């Protein structure tokens, strides 16, 4: 494995929704349960990634829609996709972390050092994918570690290792890209023309270390088409702050120069 270039390629067309990745992740990383809540929607009782869910299998169901080409009941679709922290090339959480707890590892992943995090919660609002969250009973922020400990020992992350269908692939990013391209070509040849790769390389996020093969619009998998790393807003924000500060300083001096007496 070339340092700095590993990644996940998650192929939703191979996922069978078994959730072995969720279980393997929890077992290896000692992640507590996420509440055993019953959502009443599909087979997904986990809802989303969070402080105690680092792999999350989505169950994307679509009923046939009248007026939307092909009303045969056979057009009902049921797709699964295992979601994970995207390990962004330009990661909002990493940039925002004021303690330096969040770092980029030698494998290219974004890692929260649990012995440094003081639970300020700023990474929670700067992640454009809603991945990081603060665990209430612990006080610190948590997310996928990219199995930093396993990678250190030359092992693949627990989720990829446990996946029984090869839907979650781990490896060198360039190699994974080749696998993905070949897979798309094959699926298109089979008539699955809506298969496409989600990886926001053209956005300020600058691509991810976890990319996905999905069918149709990625929005239905809660994968945003145009994520933005919040650091792109800094120039605008600080310019406004500087002008506002200047106005306050000047205004105060002027006001006191003109009306400092009772």
């Amino acid at each position, binding site marked *: 494995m070339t340092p700095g270039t590993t990644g996940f390629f998650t192929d939703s067309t191979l996922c069978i929704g078994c959730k072995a990745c969720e279980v393997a992740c929890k077992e290896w990383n000692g992640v507590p349960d996420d509440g055993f809540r019953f959502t009443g929607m599909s087979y*997904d009782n986990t809802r*989303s990634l969070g402080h105690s869910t680092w792999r999350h299998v*989505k169950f*994307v169901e679509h009923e046939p829609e009248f*007026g939307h*080409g*092909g009303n045969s009941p056979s057009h009902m679709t049921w797709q699964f996709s295992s979601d994970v922290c995207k390990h962004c090339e330009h990661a*909002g959480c990493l940039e*925002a*972390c*004021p*303690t*330096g707890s969040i770092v980029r590892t030698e494998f290219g992943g974004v890692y929260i050092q649990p012995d*440094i*995090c*003081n*639970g*300020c*919660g*700023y990474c*929670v*609002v*700067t*992640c*454009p*994918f*809603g991945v*990081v*969250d603060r*665990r209430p009973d612990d*006080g*610190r922020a948590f997310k996928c570690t990219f199995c930093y400990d396993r990678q250190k020992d030359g092992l693949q992350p627990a989720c990829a290792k446990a996946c029984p269908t090869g839907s979650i692939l781990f490896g060198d990013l360039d190699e994974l890209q080749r696998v993905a391209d070949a897979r798309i070509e094959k699926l298109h040849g089979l008539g699955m*023309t809506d298969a496409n790769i989600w990886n926001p390389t053209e956005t300020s996020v600058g691509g991810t270390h976890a990319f996905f093969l999905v069918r149709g*619009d990625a*929005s*239905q*998998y*809660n994968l*945003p*088409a145009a994520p*933005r790393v*919040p650091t792109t*807003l*800094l120039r*605008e*924000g*600080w*310019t*406004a*702050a500087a002008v506002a500060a200047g106005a*306050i*300083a000047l205004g*105060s001096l002027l*006001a*006191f*120069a003109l*009306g*400092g*007496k*009772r």
Partner: protein
Amino acid sequence: MIDERRLDELREEAARTGSVAGKLLRYYDVPLLKAPVWSWEVPAYFFVGGGAGAAAVLAAAARLTGADASLVKDARWIAAVGAAVSGPLLIADLGRPERFLNMMRVFKPQSPMSVGAWILAGFGTLSAATVLADLLGFERIADTAGVLSAATGLGMATYTGVLLGATAIPAWAEHVSLLPFHFGASALGSAASALQLRGHDEKALHILAFGAAVFETAAAVPPRSTTMKAAEFLSGPVPLALRLLGLRSKRARRAAAAATLLGSLLTRLAWVESGRDSAAESGP
């Protein structure tokens, strides 16, 4: 397959022209983003810290222009006490309060939270030094520290706007260039108002608080919640009207000051609340 695609195209075109409902692609109604985890301490800090920062600016401006010494003293004390309260408020909100010093491990200009932690550390030290030097009779040191605390105070009054604006939360990010002005005006209005409630009646305070109320009235953001509506009402039109009356009446000026302070606190609470709502509504 060609026919199928043509049907999709027709459907999309119909959705665009509005003749059929568009297909909203969401993963059930699961929000894309996580809501801010901050509790009341953080908006309370925005209010206290912002007001304290602006008070330091007023103290320095008053001192430089030779205004009443008791006004300078009170403004310096508001700055120092506000700064002293700010730290504990922020520490109380941390998930691991005992690790608050980790904020001082690094300085990251790309993180408004890191910049803010250092601004607060500097402001706290300088505003405390100002009152301490003054108490001990070192006037020159007090004045120098006062000017420096005013410089960091300008940061205190405005950086919190960048802190909220430069995030992934749509309701905050949309207003990234308004937030520092809004928080700055709110801070200035509340500092001037706090001094008026302490019994100071300089025209300068009246002018500045009036200016802040004009800004609050003119730059109103579309209110997303009852809290924001109340905050805008109490920060803008109410003090504006009272201050126009207050050209003659001191009682109206004091009522305006009280409204501004309450409005400023509500403004900060409302902005954090709107962030939570915005995250809950977020989609891909």
